[in-house]
C-alpha cells in the first residue's frame, strides 16, 4: 500500500484552518449513536477521551493501571512548551515550529509540526481554565523557564511536577464525563489485539487483569494513546508497566510502524548503581537552566574523586571542564538532549567519568545558589558578603524551583545535592518512533488512530524538552476530536458493532492461545531474566552510538533470545486470576519482536540524525552527519517475522524551512 500522508493543500499557516473548514462533521444527535474506544489514559488518551465524550460520542476508555490518573504522563517533570510569547522575547508560532523541526534534525513532517505550534497556546488557556496550578510570579501571571535547543523562554511549569498537574487536569475532565456516564472506564484492563472487520478497526480484545477474563469490546473507531516503547531497553525512565503491546498488536494487524530506531536518550538521569536496578530516574532538563555540567580536566583528579580522596567541591574552577559550555558556547548547558547525551558519553568514554563505573558527570548548582543568594540578599537589604547567609538564601530559591527533584535525588543516591554536585548519566527516556499516522492521526488501518508518544509524527529524530506534554494534549484536545469526526461521519447509519462475528472470535482465540502457551510453557527462567538480557543487547548495540557490525549482531542475538524465551520462560499461576507475571510475559514477548525491527531500522538508516547516531556517519568534530538521501520516514509493514518487514518510505519535503546543518555552537 502506498503511503498517503493526506497533507492539506495551501500555504503552511492556513492548512489546519482550511482542513477544519472542509472536513465532514457529525451532528450532535448522531454522535450519540457512535462508540469510540480509547486505549491508554495519559495526556493524549485521557484528553481525547474527555473531549470526545464532551462532544457527545460514547467513549470506552481502557488503562492497565488501577486508575487513569496513574498513566506515566504523571511522571513528566519539567514543563510544557507553548508559543505564548508572554516573556516578549521574540517567540512566535513560526519560531516554535522552526525550533521543533530543527531540533528533530529535519526528520519530521512540516505540516504536523506547524499545526502543533499553532494550537500550543490554546493548551495553556485550556489547562488554566481547568484549574491546573502552573507556577506564577508575584504579579499573579504565569511564569516561564527555558528548555534545551531554543533561545526563548516558552516553557510553562508546575515545579518539577508539570506532567502530574496536566494529567490530573485531563483526569478531572475525564471524571466529569465518567460521572455523566459518557465515558465508561475500564481500569486494570490490557488491550491484547485490535479487531479489524472489513478493513476497518472495529474493536479490541482486552484482558481484565483482576479476573483474567478475556473480553471483546466493539466500537466504530479505536484510538491508541498507549505511549512509547523505551522499556525495550529494560532500564529506562519509563514506568515498569509501560509497554509496546497495544502498538505492536496494531502493527501486526496492518498498522505501519515508523522510525522505530529514533529513541531519546535523556542526558540527565541518576546513574545506574547495580544489577538489582529495576528502573532509572530522570532529573528534569529544567535543572540545566541553573545547573552547570562538568567533569575534571585532568585524569589524576578523576582518579582522586573515584578513590574518594578528593571531593568535587574541592576542585578549583580552572581544573574543571564545563564541556558543554566549551563546545557549544551559543547554547551552553541548554543544548538539545541528543547533543548533551553524546557529549557526556564522549567524556566518559575518554575516561573522565566521576563515579566508580566511570559513567557519570556532574550537574552542579553551586554557581546558581551563589547567584540567587546574592540577588535575594540585595532584595532583602542583607549583607551580600556573608557567605553562609548567601548560600542559605540561594538554597531556598533553588529549593522553591526544584525542591521535589532534589529530594528524589537525595533519597536514591543518599547524597545532598544542595551541598555536593549531582551525578548524572544519560538514560533511555522517550521514543520518537511509533505507529505511522497521516495528517489526521489515522494509522494505515482505517478507523485506527494513534495519539501522543504512541505515534511517530511530530518530533522527527529528536524531541525537544517540554514538547511531549504539548504534543500529547494537542493531539487529544485539539486535533483528533476534529479529524476523527470526518471518518465517523460515514458511520452515522452503521448502528452498534456486534462482537458476535468471526473476526472477534478469531482475535479472541488467538489471544487465548498465546496466554495458554505462556502459562503452560513450564520453562525455568522468570520473565525478567529475558527482559534484562534484551535490554543489555539494546543498550550495548542499539544505544547512544550504533554501527553496522553491532546492529547485525543485535538482530541475530535478539532473534535467538526470542526463540529461547518461548522455549524456556516460566510463568507461574493460572490465566484466570490476577497474574502480573503473565501480563509481563506478554509484554516482553512483544518487546522481543519490536527490538529486532528497531535494530533493522537502525541498520537501514545509513546516516546520523538526532537520537540515531551511526559511528560511520559523523562530521570531523564528531557531530551527527545527516544524508540527503535519507530524508524520509521509514514505515515498516508487518510480514511475519521482524526480519521480513517491508520498508515503505514517506519522503519529507521542507518548503517553509531551510534544511541546513544543525548547529548549536
Amino acid at each position: 500500500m502506498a503511503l498517503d500522508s493526506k497533507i492539506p493543500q495551501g500555504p503552511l499557516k492556513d492548512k489546519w484552518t482550511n482542513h477544519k473548514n472542509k472536513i465532514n462533521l457529525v451532528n450532535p444527535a448522531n454522535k450519540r449513536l457512535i462508540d469510540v474506544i480509547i486505549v491508554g489514559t495519559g495526556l493524549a488518551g485521557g484528553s481525547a477521551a474527555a473531549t470526545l465524550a464532551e462532544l457527545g460520542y460514547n467513549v470506552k476508555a481502557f488503562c492497565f493501571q488501577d486508575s487513569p490518573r496513574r498513566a506515566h504522563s504523571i511522571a513528566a517533570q519539567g514543563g510544557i512548551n507553548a508559543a505564548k510569547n508572554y516573556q516578549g522575547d521574540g517567540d512566535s508560532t513560526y519560531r516554535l515550529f522552526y525550533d521543533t523541526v530543527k531540533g528533530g534534525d529535519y526528520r519530521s513532517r512540516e505540516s504536523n509540526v506547524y499545526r502543533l505550534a499553532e494550537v500550543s497556546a490554546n493548551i495553556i488557556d485550556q489547562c488554566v481554565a481547568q484549574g491546573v496550578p502552573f507556577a506564577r510570579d508575584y504579579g499573579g501571571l504565569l511564569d516561564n523557564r527555558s528548555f534545551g535547543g531554543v533561545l526563548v523562554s516558552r516553557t510553562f511549569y508546575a515545579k518539577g511536577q508539570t506532567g502530574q498537574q496536566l494529567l490530573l487536569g485531563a483526569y478531572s475532565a475525564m471524571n466529569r464525563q465518567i460521572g455523566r456516564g459518557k465515558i465508561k472506564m475500564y481500569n486494570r484492563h490490557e488491550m491484547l489485539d485490535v479487531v479489524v472487520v472489513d478493513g476497518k478497526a472495529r474493536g479490541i480484545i482486552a484482558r481484565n487483569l483482576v479476573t483474567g477474563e478475556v473480553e471483546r469490546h466493539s466500537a466504530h473507531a479505536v484510538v491508541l494513546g498507549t505511549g512509547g516503547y523505551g522499556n525495550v531497553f529494560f532500564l529506562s525512565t519509563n514506568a515498569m508497566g509501560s509497554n509496546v503491546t497495544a502498538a505492536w498488536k496494531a502493527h501486526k494487524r496492518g498498522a505501519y510502524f515508523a522510525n522505530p530506531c529514533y529513541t531519546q536518550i535523556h542526558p540527565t538521569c541518576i546513574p545506574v548503581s547495580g544489577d538489582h536496578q529495576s528502573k532509572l530516574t530522570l532529573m528534569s532538563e529544567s535543572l540545566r537552566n541553573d545547573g552547570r555540567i562538568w567533569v575534571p580536566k585532568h585524569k589524576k583528579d578523576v582518579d582522586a574523586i573515584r578513590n574518594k580522596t578528593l571531593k568535587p567541591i574541592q576542585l578549583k574552577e580552572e581544573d574543571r571542564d564545563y564541556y558543554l559550555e566549551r563546545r557549544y558556547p551559543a547554547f551552553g548547558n541548554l543544548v538539545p538532549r541528543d547533543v548533551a547525551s553524546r557529549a557526556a558519553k564522549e567524556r566518559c568514554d575518554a575516561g573522565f567519568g566521576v563515579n566508580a563505573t566511570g559513567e557519570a558527570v556532574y550537574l552542579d548548582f553551586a554557581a546558581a545558589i551563589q547567584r540567587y543568594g546574592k540577588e535575594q540578599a540585595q532584595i532583602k537589604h542583607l549583607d551580600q558578603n556573608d557567605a553562609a547567609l548567601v548560600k542559605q538564601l540561594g538554597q531556598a530559591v533553588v529549593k522553591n524551583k526544584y525542591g521535589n527533584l532534589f529530594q528524589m535525588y537525595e533519597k536514591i543516591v543518599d547524597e545532598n545535592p544542595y551541598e555536593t554536585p549531582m551525578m548524572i548519566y544519560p538514560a533511555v527516556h522517550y521514543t520518537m518512533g511509533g505507529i505511522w499516522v497521516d495528517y489526521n492521526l489515522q494509522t494505515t488501518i482505517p478507523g485506527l488512530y494513534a495519539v501522543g508518544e504512541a505515534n511517530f509524527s511530530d518530533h522527527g529524530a529528536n524531541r525537544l524538552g517540554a514538547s511531549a506534554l504539548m504534543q500529547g494534549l494537542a493531539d487529544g484536545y485539539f486535533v483528533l476530536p476534529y479529524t476523527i469526526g470526518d471518518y465517523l461521519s460515514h458511520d452515522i447509519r452503521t448502528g452498534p458493532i456486534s462482537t458476535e462475528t468471526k473476526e472477534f472470535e478469531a482475535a479472541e482465540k488467538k489471544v487465548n492461545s498465546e496466554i495458554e502457551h505462556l502459562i503452560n510453557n513450564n520453562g525455568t527462567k522468570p520473565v525478567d531474566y529475558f527482559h534484562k538480557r534484551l535490554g543489555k543487547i539494546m543498550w550495548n548495540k542499539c544505544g547512544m552510538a550504533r554501527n553496522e557490525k553491532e546492529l547485525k549482531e543485535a538482530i541475530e542475538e535478539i532473534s535467538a533470545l526470542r526463540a529461547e524465551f518461548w522455549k524456556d520462560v516460566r510463568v507461574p499461576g493460572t490465566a484466570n486470576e490476577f497474574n502480573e507475571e503473565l501480563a509481563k510475559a506478554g509484554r516482553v514477548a512483544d518487546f522481543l519482536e519490536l527490538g529486532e525491527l528497531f535494530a533493522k531500522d537502525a541498520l537501514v538508516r545509513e546516516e546520523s540524525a538526532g537520537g540515531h547516531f551511526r559511528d560511520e556517519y559523523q562530521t570531523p568534530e564528531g557531530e551527527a552527519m545527516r544524508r540527503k538521501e535519507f530524508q524520509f520516514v521509514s514505515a515498516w509493514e508487518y510480514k511475519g517475522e521482524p526480519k521480513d518487514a517491508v520498508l515503505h518510505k514517506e519522503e519529507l519535503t521542507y518548503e517553509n524551512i531551510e534544511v541546513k546543518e544543525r548547529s548549536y555552537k
Partner: protein
Amino acid sequence: MNLTLKIWRQKDANDKGKIVDYKINDISPDMSFLEMLDVLNSELITKGDEPVAFDHDCREGICGSCSLYINGEAHGPDRLVTTCQLHMRKFKDGDTIFIEPFRAKAFPVIKDLVVDRTAFDRVQHAGGFISVNTSGNTQDANSIPIEKVNADKAFDAATCIGCGACVASCKNSSAMLFVSAKVSQFALLPQGQVEATDRVLNMVNQMDEEGFGNCTNTGACEVECPKGISLENIARMNREFLTASLKG
C-alpha cells in the same frame, strides 16, 4: 543484608489470608524496597512458588500505585517518600520486616498486597473537576491573575498522588486528607469558585457513601503522607462544607 520478611498472602478477595515468613539474603542497602521484593519474587518463581503480588508502576514516587504497610507504617519508616522510594539502607542487617496491604473497608484486597482503591476515583467523579469544556475556546491564560500565595497553596494541595496512605494510617480509615486536597485546590483558585458549593457537598457525600470513616483530628494522615499534604486542607474543606451546607 539478610532479612526475615513476614508478608500478607491472600489468594483473592474471598480468601481469609495469612502472614507467611520468608528469608532473604544478600540484599544491597542501595536497593529500593520494591527491588528487594523483585529479588524475592524472582527466587519464588524459580523455585516454582507464587510470587507476591503488589501494585507499583513509576517507581519514582509520583504515580501513587505503590502502597504497602511496612512495620506498621504506610510506605514504611522513612518520611515524605512512597514505598518505591524507600531504600533498604533504612533497615539493618538481620531485621524482621512486616509487610501488609493498606487496610480499610473502602479498599478491599484484590490479592496479597494489592488493594482496590477505585473508591478514590468515584469521589473524584462526584465533583473533582471544573466544568469547562476542552474545546479550547477559553479566555487567555493570563487574563486570570492569581495571587502567588494562593497559586502555591493550590499547587501544594494538588500534588496529592492518591495513594491512600492517609486512609491506611487513620484509625477511622478516613479519607478526609485526600478529599480535602482536591476541594482545597479548587477552593483556592478563582476558576473553582463557580461550583464550590456543589463540589464540596457532592464529594463529601460520595466519600461517606464509599464507607470511609470520620475525621477525629489525630493527624496521622499528615505524618504518613508521602507528599506532605497539610491538615490545613481538612480545615479548609470543613469551612467550605459548612458554608455550602448553610447556603444549600
